[in-house]
């Protein structure tokens, strides 16, 4: 009998051969075998994934235990137009494969990697099922151009721009179909993607058919509950303060005196709920004749904790991976399809709920509210709605905002080993990413917020096509000379992006309020090549070059060349290290490369002089005829690539028989000719700011990851993974000419005042640094309203007294993942620590006593309890910019805790089941006073509350 050394279970299908003969057999389903061999003969046992074993026949029974091969060492990572063994990789590449995905989590693809990879930060964008988290690899390298990494799904680089009617672009990939997620971080590994590689590359590979016949069914059911709420005043407290503050304002007093303090509505509570979700997946994989196949089907229904929000999604994936002509032609066909329905909530409703007047009930039987569906509505003295401060609950329940989207991503890859030329193959990859979506926003004429507009009946449509053709040759040949190995790839890539969309807004009687449509496209054409060369399996060299052309630029600026080079030295192969017993692997890597950036969000023609036609509501009459206006659009004819030059030095190591493995990388990135949206001198273009190449930007940092098998026993396994990233960014240059008096470009618009910004991009500082006044405090440490330090000492407080204070981006992030198994039990958790990220609390800053009856508009608003603490009375643009509101929002977040149990051999030998219980977003530890410390750009305003989710999961394998 042949058994697994660890589990002791029988191994079926193990090949057993009598050494030196052709006599052989295979083990049966229980691992048993019988073979004719004479005493003293040697039997050879081999099985995929296990270390081969030889044993001498001494009697009638020969039981052997096969040891599972140490996987980590031979694992393969996908690197773009090919793959490489991790031990031979020269760049900074990390992978998470499906076996490391935690079972039982209701998740999106992004969550599969959150906190698992060093230098990869995933910031959730609130807790909405339809929102999309932001992914940054090593902090990004651009200012105004996109900082999103390039995402490649089964060889198809997908468009990162949102699909109308879908909140989350990656939502259309079912996490259960993902086999592995590889992240390329440094330039030497990303440069093969040239112009799109500056922000790193995420390569998602989906599952393929396996041998045999397997069925997996997975079902997850969860309940999400709201966690924290903003502390606001009770009705009585509010009215007491208001009466005092507004004593001399007769208009305000009339409204205040009419308020009913016996009512004390918690508006946050009123719009939130416990939300149920169900996620069910079934997959069938196997091999039928020559055809390995995998088919999966998934259905998800997820409700959001904000009332009415949620999504429904059906996914399907098919993979066929046959080989022909004696394995010389490999075919890999992937087809993925998704249909989703998303119901969006009015973002403003969440914000309004924080500070809505507590003296009003959400719904009322008072006849004056009956024309508006019974929802409380602020009314004028004739019983008609005011055009402000709409009831948050009515904005959710009386507004129907739904998106419907089909998306399909697919590719056909033909991999042909050219006969008679050993080591040469040609690869053709044809891919597409297609989506068609539409949406509808509807509100009836009796909704208070749509009363004057006579209802809302808006429609939108979008169609997107992304077509891809890659063709490349790969030549891989070992040479005896220096025991070297040569691996050359050279090819061509063509990609076309096309998008068409339309909006048709009208009211219920059919009056068109606005109508627009738009079509746009862009092309990328590239030539690329890569050489991997190794000597004595010890010294590894990689060089790549890619030449990219982008239709977004004009003339000579269209083309850019992006080279890279890297070397690695497998120190563990040197005699001196071979003699260190604790050391199982050691590799030193160094790389350099230049990558590009051309992804200018929503603008495919930034360098082209053009005109656009206006719509029918913005006509102008001349002599009684209404003309649609034509407007010249701002452009920069000389716009070109942004370039990032980066350096990376890394060390991969394994000790104690690879029980502890890890890597550490140091990197430096320098981006020049930043694609930057900057203010320009008036009179030089058709806008007050344009997208142009100006400025330089650097980032440097350390990535560390460590995986340890803390316990590795037969019944008890415990592994821990720890990742750390230290990242520091600095703007080096922002103007074309040297101009020391230039303060910087203001960014980061805030609520509370029109056109006010809280952040600055300034030379010598991180991106989006807060640009604020220095608050003055009294002896008791209480901030003094409207008193700021006169930093430039000119005797007055004006814009010149603002200073740069902190950045929204954490310099240090860490992740800790633990996986513990004891017999059939498993216990996993994953947490993230973010240190030194600052958040501007806009919810607090825009709330002063003067906002209880804001702008005399006729309605009351609540204020947070924090406002009573400061006692700030009047909202001014200076007050909004006080550094008092910039808070240290460092946090530790326990992303999930899972407990599971595996039932083997139920009913029949083939059926096994895993039952899991998971708490997602289990707890957050932070000093931040707002609702959620995790705010990507550091301005906390209007965030969908993050729920805590309890998930019960069941996985069945047949």
């Amino acid at each position, binding site marked *: 009998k042949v058994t697994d050394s660890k589990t002791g279970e029988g191994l079926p299908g193990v090949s057993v051969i009598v050494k030196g003969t052709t006599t052989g057999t295979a083990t049966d389903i229980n691992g048993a075998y019988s073979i004719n061999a004479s005493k003293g003969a040697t039997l050879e046992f081999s099985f995929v994934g296990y270390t081969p074993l030889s044993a001498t026949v001494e009697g009638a029974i020969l039981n052997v235990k096969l040891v599972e091969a140490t996987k980590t060492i031979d694992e393969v990572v996908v690197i773009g137009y090919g793959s490489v063994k991790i031990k031979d990789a020269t760049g900074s590449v990390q992978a998470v494969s499906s076996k490391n995905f935690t079972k039982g989590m209701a998740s999106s693809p992004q969550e599969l990697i959150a906190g698992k990879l060093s230098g990869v930060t995933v910031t959730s964008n609130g807790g909405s099922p339809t929102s999309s988290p932001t992914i940054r690899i090593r902090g990004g390298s651009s200012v105004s151009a996109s900082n999103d990494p390039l995402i490649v799904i089964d060889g198809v680089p997908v468009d990162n721009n949102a699909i109308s009617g879908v909140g989350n672009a990656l939502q259309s990939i079912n996490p259960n179909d993902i086999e592995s997620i590889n992240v390329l971080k440094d330039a030497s590994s990303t440069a093969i993607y040239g112009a799109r590689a500056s922000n790193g590359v995420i390569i998602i590979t989906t599952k393929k058919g396996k041998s045999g016949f397997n069925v997996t069914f997975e079902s997850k059911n969860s309940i999400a509950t709201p966690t924290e709420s903003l502390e606001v005043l009770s009705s009585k407290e509010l009215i007491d303060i208001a009466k005092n503050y507004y004593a001399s304002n007769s208009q305000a007093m009339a409204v205040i005196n009419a308020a009913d303090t016996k009512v004390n509505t918690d508006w946050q509570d009123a719009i939130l709920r416990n939300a149920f979700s169900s996620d069910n997946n079934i997959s069938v994989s196997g091999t039928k004749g020559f055809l390995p196949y995998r088919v999966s089907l998934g259905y998800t229904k997820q409700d959001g904790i904000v009332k009415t929000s949620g999504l429904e999604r059906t996914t399907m994936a098919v993979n066929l991976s046959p080989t022909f002509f004696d394995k010389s032609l490999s075919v890999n066909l992937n087809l993925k399809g998704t249909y989703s329905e998303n119901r969006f909530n009015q973002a403003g409703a969440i914000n309004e709920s924080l500070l809505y007047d507590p003296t009003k009930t959400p719904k009322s039987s008072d006849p004056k509210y009956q024309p508006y569906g019974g929802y409380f509505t602020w009314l004028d003295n004739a019983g008609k709605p005011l055009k402000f401060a709409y009831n948050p609950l009515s904005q959710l329940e009386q507004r129907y905002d739904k998106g419907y989207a089909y998306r399909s991503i697919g590719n056909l890859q033909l991999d042909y080993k050219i006969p008679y030329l050993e080591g040469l193959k040609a690869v053709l990859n044809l891919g597409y990413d297609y989506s068609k979506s539409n949406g509808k926003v509807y509100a009836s004429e009796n909704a208070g917020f749509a009363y004057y507009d006579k209802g809302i009946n808006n429609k939108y449509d979008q169609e997107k096509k992304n077509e891809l053709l890659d063709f490349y040759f790969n030549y891989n040949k070992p040479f005896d000379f220096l025991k070297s190995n040569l691996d050359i790839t050279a090819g061509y890539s063509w990609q076309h992006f096309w998008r068409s969309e339309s909006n048709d807004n009208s009211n219920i009687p059919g009056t068109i309020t606005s109508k627009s449509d738009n079509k746009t496209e862009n092309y990328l054409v590239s030539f690329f090549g890569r050489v991997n060369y190794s000597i004595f399996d010890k010294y590894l060299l990689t060089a790549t070059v890619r030449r990219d052309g982008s239709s977004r630029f004009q003339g000579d600026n269209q083309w850019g060349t992006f080279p890279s080079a890297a070397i690695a030295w497998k120190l563990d192969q040197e005699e001196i290290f071979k003699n260190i017993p604790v050391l199982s692997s050691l590799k030193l890597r160094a790389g350099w490369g230049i990558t590009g950036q051309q992804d200018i969000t929503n603008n495919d023609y930034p360098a082209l002089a053009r005109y656009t036609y206006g719509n029918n509501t913005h006509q102008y009459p001349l002599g009684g005829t209404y003309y649609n206006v034509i407007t010249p659009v701002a452009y920069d004819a000389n716009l070109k690539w942004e370039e990032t030059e980066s350096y990376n030095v890394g060390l991969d190591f394994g000790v104690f028989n690879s029980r502890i493995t890890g890597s550490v990388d140091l990197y430096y990135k320098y981006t020049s000719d930043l694609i930057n949206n900057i203010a320009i001198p008036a009179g030089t273009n058709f806008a007050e700011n344009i997208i142009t190449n100006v400025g330089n930007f650097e980032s440097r940092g350390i990535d560390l990851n460590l995986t340890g098998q803390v316990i590795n026993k037969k019944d008890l396994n415990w592994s821990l993974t720890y990742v750390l990233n230290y990242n520091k960014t600095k703007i080096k240059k922002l103007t074309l000419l040297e101009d020391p008096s230039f303060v910087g470009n203001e960014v980061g618009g805030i609520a509370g*005042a029109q056109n*006010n910004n809280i952040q600055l991009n300034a030379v010598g500082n991180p991106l989006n640094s807060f640009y604020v006044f220095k608050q003055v405090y009294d002896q008791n440490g209480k901030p003094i309203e409207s008193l700021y330090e006169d930093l430039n000492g000119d005797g007055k407080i004006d814009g010149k007294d603002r200073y740069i204070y902190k950045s929204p981006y954490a310099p240090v992030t860490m992740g800790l993942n633990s996986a513990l198994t004891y017999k059939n039990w498993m216990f996993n958790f994953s947490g993230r620590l973010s240190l030194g990220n600052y958040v501007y609390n806009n919810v607090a800053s825009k709330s002063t006593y003067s906002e209880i009856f804001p702008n005399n508009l006729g309605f009351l608003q609540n204020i947070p309890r924090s406002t009573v603490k400061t006692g700030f009375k009047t909202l001014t643009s200076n007050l909004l910019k006080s550094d008092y509101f910039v808070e240290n929002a460092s946090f530790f977040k326990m992303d999930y805790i899972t407990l599971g149990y595996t039932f083997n051999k139920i009913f029949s030998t083939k059926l096994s089941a895993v039952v899991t219980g998971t708490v997602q977003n289990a707890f957050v530890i932070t000093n931040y006073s707002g609702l959620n410390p995790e705010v990507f750009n550091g301005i906390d305003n209007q965030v969908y509350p993050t729920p805590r989710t309890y998930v019960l999961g069941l996985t069945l394998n047949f």
Partner: protein
Amino acid sequence: CTKDLDVKPIDPDDVTAEVVYSKPEGYSQGLAKIYGLFSLTGDGIKGDISGDEGFSGFLRVYWNIQELTSDNAKCAWGDAGIDQLNFGQLSPENQFVYYMYYRVMLSATFMNEYLRQTTEDKVKGRGLGNIWPDVQKYRAEVRFLRAYIYWVGLDLFGNIPVVTEADQIGAGLPIQKTQKEVFDFVEKELLEVQNELAAPNSNAYGRVDKAAAWTLLAKLYLNAETYIKEKHYTDAYTYAKKVITESSYKLQNNYAYNFLADNDVNKSEIIWPIASDGTRTQSFANLTFIMNSSTNGGDAAWKSAIGLQGGWNGNRGTAKLAELFGITDKASLESCPDKRAMFRMLDDIKMNDWKTFVQGVGIMKFKNITSTGAVGSDPTGTFPDTDFPMLRLADVYLMYAEAAVRGGGDVDATVPFVNDIRKRAFGDENHNVAKADLTLDFILAERGRELYYEATRRTDLVRFGKFTSADYLWPWKGGAKDGKATDVKYNLLPLPYQEVGSNPNMKQNPGY
């Protein structure tokens, strides 16, 4: 496949200049854009200036700067920068300064593009020689409008660059000009185009004619002493007189008709209007702003009287404005013989707290109601049909008198025109004035009564030396409840710090 990279926009609404101007209607659409710059904030898809689109519209920001800094009106909103407007003390960081400046320069840039694309060579080269005579007229109008926008820049900011069609897009940094250089440019342009513009009253409604150029010349010359310390009162007198004698514009019989939803019909007095339309010419910047912001949203009767449902509770007149009409309380309002006082009593005419909307006087000069009492066309009650009079004959009459009083001509000849205005205001001749009454103080007060809320007040106060001085105070001038003198530097607005930061050729105005 590398040819794929040479893309042209595939959207039929997204085209190159050559496509636009290959058809005759392109020239009208381009002209509509230029005129529309004064009413619209963008094209409905994208705003001309990013940020809050409504805020950046020409009339909204110009009106705010002209009226809120003056004795006419104060805004009760707490929005950033409004306190500085109410106090007449704008700083380089103020967002209204920013929007005003960029609106001026951006408008000029659009106008330059039109002039570049419509030269005789280009039009004929496109085989459109038959429309050249029309295009020539369009070009003269665009040059007038450019002179106007640079006049606004001169009046408010003084030392601004003058960018023309000779400056290509994306070319080097513009050079700052002195007030004298800007003045000379505006004067030269107006003197040239007055010959090319249509004869007075002969152009289509909404488009300018010779009378517009003369009116603007009169304004330019009347203020010359402020701008360049040169007296041009004779020139001001001459051009005001030209409008009066060489055109058939005449006073509207009913003062109020100038400000109603059908003032495109009752247009005899309006030399150049900024058009609005409730459904087709929508903007949160034109009269939409002035009317909604001056109305109490909680007061249904008030909203109905105006014909709009916005009710933004922002702007109302000051006690000083009421005082020009002799109004101090409810009784004196009801008995006021001057029909121009279209006021509404609020809780307290005194403005002890500028942030309380119901203090001061409600202003109901502009209405989205026609002369026959019908409500304007927008079913949602947001956008009015009412056009804003940019240049109006009554203003010319008063400039005529002022130029004479300031030594530019025969005062006697101007007295009847002042009395035409008075007769219309009072409905009788009992309030007529004589030559001796025509003092500068009287003229400033009369301009206040006739032209309040029409975006001329700040310019007038500066010209009369009253904008910053201690001898003429109004509520909240300088930030004091009863008003106080402010620094003389405020006679000229600061340049926005963004411009001084991004163009090293620009020097901040004195004192800032």
